[in-house]
């Protein structure tokens, strides 16, 4: 029963966002602020994770490809496809659920507990559209960009690890990247990125916005937001793979 009422409250929150902005300029300012917070704030962690993700993927693929019958280019193909299909969108978004999700839930939770949300409501501002709307749109803009960056860096990380570790040369790796490349995979990864971005931002906003109590509850809301986002990301990952691939 509680699950249904939570889903209902979540849907009502999303519905409540769709109103005419009180002042478009202020909403735009907030959107830019959130884009910087979410995008630039996560840039370093995404860069580091992506490079190592590609590197480890290259080393482990090489370790498993023991047959001399398989060409070295296969390593590049495996790294490319795993990075594009799974690692960049899913793994990066799970990390972002932790980084961005906890930040959003904590920020909104603190605003709720310290009555800042009430203060905005009393001013006549629709807090759902002013506080949550820009966060969701900013996530939908920046997270897919971060995922694209993760794809590029992941593949480059694999090339770097392959050439530095003497597994395969850069030229062989580049050749392998072009074999059996399906652009649909990139499109599929972007669909996943948009879906996960929406999940991370909206779920975290929901738990942060509805915090009741004090600082302890803010911490709990952040944890719940991250856990719920991760579970929903994995669930959505399976559903999308099942229906699109």
């Amino acid at each position, binding site marked *: 029963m509680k699950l249904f009422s939570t889903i209902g409250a979540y849907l009502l929150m999303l519905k409540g966002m769709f109103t005419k902005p*009180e*002042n478009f*300029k*202020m909403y735009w300012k907030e959107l830019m602020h959130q884009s910087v917070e979410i995008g630039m704030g996560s840039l370093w962690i995404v860069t580091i994770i992506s490079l190592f993700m590609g590197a480890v993927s290259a080393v482990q693929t090489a370790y498993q490809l023991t047959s001399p019958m398989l060409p070295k280019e296969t390593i590049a193909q495996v790294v490319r496809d795993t990075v594009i299909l799974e690692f960049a969108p899913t793994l990066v978004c799970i990390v972002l659920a932790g980084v961005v999700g906890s930040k959003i839930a904590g920020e909104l939770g*603190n605003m709720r507990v*310290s*009555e*800042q949300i*009430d*203060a905005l*409501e*009393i*001013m*006549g*501002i*629709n807090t759902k559209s002013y506080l949550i709307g820009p966060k969701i749109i900013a996530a939908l803009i920046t997270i897919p960009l971060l995922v694209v960056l993760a794809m590029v860096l992941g593949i480059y990380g694999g090339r770097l690890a392959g050439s530095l570790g003497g597994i395969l040369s850069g030229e062989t790796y580049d050749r392998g990247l072009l074999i059996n490349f399906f652009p649909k995979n990139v499109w599929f990864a972007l669909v996943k990125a948009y879906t996960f971005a929406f999940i991370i931002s909206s779920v975290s906003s929901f738990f942060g916005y509805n915090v009741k109590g004090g600082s302890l509850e803010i911490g709990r809301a952040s944890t719940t937001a991250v856990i719920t986002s991760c579970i929903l990301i994995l669930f959505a990952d399976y559903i999308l793979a099942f229906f699109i691939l």
Partner: protein
Amino acid sequence: MIEIKNVCKSFGDKEILNDISAVMETGMTNLIIGTSGSGKTVLQKCMVGLFEVDKGDIIFDGKNLTNMAQEDRKELRQQIGMLFQGSALFDSMTVEQNVKFPLDMFTKWNHQKKIERVNDVLARVELKDTNKKYPSEISGGMKKRVGIARAIVLRPKYLFCDEPNSGLDPQTSMVIDKLIHEITKEYNITTVINTHDMNSVMEIGENILYLYNGKKEWEGSSKDIIFNKNKKLNEFIFASEFLRDAKDMRMLEEKGIVDNDRNMEKIMREGGANLLMNDDDKSE
């Protein structure tokens, strides 16, 4: 003027407000007092529309908040300023940005005009050289002043203050009370204050509503409080022996038996309570 008519509010099975009716007068400091859990915060939140009432009406100068369309409610809210218990300043903004925020959101003024208004209200609450400071860099009393400045920057018709003195020392509390009282008179606004503070009750309570267990128990002014015979109110207001003595003194003052220092020797000798008793007996 704000009229509260037969307001009821429950959370689940728990009844918080039971048939409350009152009038909050314009140009006056209207106080809602009561023990913790008596429903004063809930009543104030119902009045500003943060909670929906189960029954009854809340009427702002003839406009009924309870059956108002969302757009009209938004418009009305722009005429409401509120000072929160914890000030509710936006942490990521400076004092100036906090006060300017309602102007940015609801006016099309140029930057210069906004800054002029911000400086004007900051000067009114006697805050100087704090424009570029963040809320974390200023004291509790200063935060309250910034909260008041933000609440009045759009020149509201109604000002709500939720426990404006909580967490402040008695001297700063008096300054904040005085400020709210002066602003109420100066801008002729309807001010509603939730408070526990007995100094506030006695100093600025022009129209006082006492709630007990979600019901209206008593209504009157600070002068009426001195002579009130309501047992529950007296137990609440004059909880300590010190306050009971202060009440006796104030009664003597009001009745003209004592004028501050005059007759002190007699009072010390005979006791204020005896003098009052004799005086009451005489009048009867």
